């Protein structure tokens, strides 16, 4: 599978990726085998990856973001397709604060054929929490089932996210 046209990879990374066609196949192909579980994906998003620190519990880059974390893009309006989501979660976004979550992301060339040493100083994506392939599929299933295209977040969604109707994080939405 080629790089998705909807993923904006910095030019330097893209150039290098295209120049290294002999690189091992992108991990997206491996993960396509798994059928994601959106319920497990919610747990991974919430309390394994702590994705809400940057993207907010609602994935909107606003609701519940952490003061100490950078503000992440609004995933409710993301144009990324399944393959692109898998790639960004696994490889991170070079040149941005989006971390990589694939344990081997920059060790065997599976991400753009690059190693961490190939990036200009400060441009390598940071290391995030480590997800196995199944959880990458789960989190993508969660995003596609409960987040992308969902409009403004609601109290009901919040209570479901935290599995707690009286969660303090949801109080402002009542």
């Amino acid at each position, binding site marked *: 599978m080629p790089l998705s046209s909807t993923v904006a990879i910095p030019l330097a990374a893209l150039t290098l990726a295209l120049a290294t066609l002999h690189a091992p196949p992108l991990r997206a192909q491996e993960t396509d085998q798994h059928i994601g579980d959106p319920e497990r994906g919610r747990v991974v998003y919430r309390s394994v990856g702590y994705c809400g620190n940057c993207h907010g519990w609602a994935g909107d880059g*606003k609701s519940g*973001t952490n*003061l*100490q974390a*950078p503000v992440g893009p609004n995933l409710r309006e993301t144009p990324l397709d399944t393959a692109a989501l898998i790639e960004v979660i696994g490889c991170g976004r070079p040149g941005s604060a989006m971390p990589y979550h694939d344990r081997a992301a920059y060790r065997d060339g599976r991400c753009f054929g690059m190693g961490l040493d190939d990036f200009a100083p400060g441009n390598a994506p940071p290391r995030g929490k480590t997800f196995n392939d199944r959880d990458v599929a789960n989190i993508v299933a969660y995003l596609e089932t409960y987040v992308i295209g969902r409009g403004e977040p609601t109290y009901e969604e919040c209570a479901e996210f*935290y599995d707690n109707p009286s*969660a*303090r*994080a949801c109080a402002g939405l009542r």
Partner: protein
Amino acid sequence: MKSHYLIAGLIATASGMAHAEVTMERLLAAGSEEEAGNWLMIGKTFDLNRFSSLDQINSGNVENLRLVMAAPIGGMEPAGFGIGAMQTTPLVDDGFLYLSDPWGTPYKYDLTSETAARPVWICDTGIDKDPSQGILLANRGLALSGNNVISVLPDGRVVACDSDTGDVVWDAQVATEVGEGFTNSPQVVGDKIIVGQSYGDWATRGWIAAIDANSGEELWRFYTIPEPGEPGSETWLCEQTGNPDCWKTGGGAAWVAGSYDPESNLVFWGTGNPVPMYDPEYRPGDNLYTNSTVALDADTGELAWYFQYTPGDYMDYDEVGPALLVETNIDGEDRKVMARFGRNGIFYTLDRNSGAYINSVAYVGNLNWTEGIDSKTGLPIEYDPEADLQSYAIGRITRAGDTATTCPNIQGGTNFFPTAYNPELGLAYAGGIEGCSDLSVRAVDPDDVLPGNIFIGGAGVNSGEQTGSINAVNVSTNTIEATLNTPYPLYGGVMASADLLWAGHLDGTFSAYNASNLEELWSMNVGTSFSAAPITFLVNGTQYVAITGGGLGVGGGLAPELSNMQAANMLWVFALDS
């Protein structure tokens, strides 16, 4: 068997024996010879000087200090922003030590064996440790009032626990609006307990309130953000923005307990930044009473005076840090002053009865946001009273894309960090951060602003490496007497004893310094990050020093190389090697 029960009963009675009640008379005498062995209030005395006259441990023997007791503390359950900060200043009365964990839960330890810090009780406040709430979890200490131990909680309650048994005596929901709560410590003044709403950056409105020490009933409340029509409301130009309610989420949190002057019956509290901190276009105007010291009548809550340090702020320069009450001689005149290390990098001295500006001196190595302070008004010289949006020396940051780099770092200078004053040397002390922050604006639609959610309106990120310093300022001469530069930012408090100054560091090092020149005389790395302030006291006539350690918390963001340090909430107690 019967005799065993009898003995057990006697021991229980003895360990639970009431100490002398903590009356207002005792608190007023907290700096006296009779109370020298105790630490009854977080600031030691009402003036928040954090000075102890004890001198068994001194510059001549501190090299023989060793760790003698330690105890783990709970409250490690995270909130939405992670594990809470261990910022509590312990209290000691007659060999028993009281402290709070980051969720505000009070603990009592018995140190009288001098061999172990034995837990006596943990007061169960019934706090819901809801991990969903996206808050900075912290608690900066307890207060002793009569036979009660008072704590403020992140869920907005104030709780009184029986100091002998740890049972809840009363429990008052003082903060009732969504997003409100407490991270500071309560301030006891006679039969009143004064508390401050702490979560301003979560789109709430700050206030300071007094409650009845015996019941928790609210007696008065002072809003740090006036409502339309009240004095000061003219400094909130919300109508210009199309959102006339911008003041309702204007912040000005009172998240550090104040000092108290019994002579004037005034309490001196600091207030936090206007909200959102980086987007003044959301809330044009000077934004009173944010970034201010407010002097309030302890009986009525009436505002006696205020002093706003950085009007129309966009650099996150809260001014909640302690107001030291000092008696000194300035230009040949004996003065009763209020001396403060500002988060904005400037040390200020004000007349504490009128709030009139006396003088100031920059204490950080790099300060660029202002060219200086007006010698008459005490305001930054760039301040324009006619301007809706201030433009300090670094230029404005705007929704149109203008950015700026401000020094000191948005976290200070100093911050909430407890400061100290040694009256024998005439020196005021603070630890803090040396560095700068890059500022930018990110406009937020008022419809997206929800109380309880963090609301900052932009970003303030570290600009290059951040280091630290401890400064000693001569209050009388308004000069920096000594500076110690440190590899990591200081993110906690200091304490002064006879000829020593004490401080805990982010990397887990606890140190004692020569109080005059800040030369290091002793240190030990115990591995827990420090963001609290130490205390010193006597047990059975022997001097001890105690401090609590925990996780890196927000301070960790200033020292990325320490990021693998793990959190463990601990009480550490030190004494001379006998």
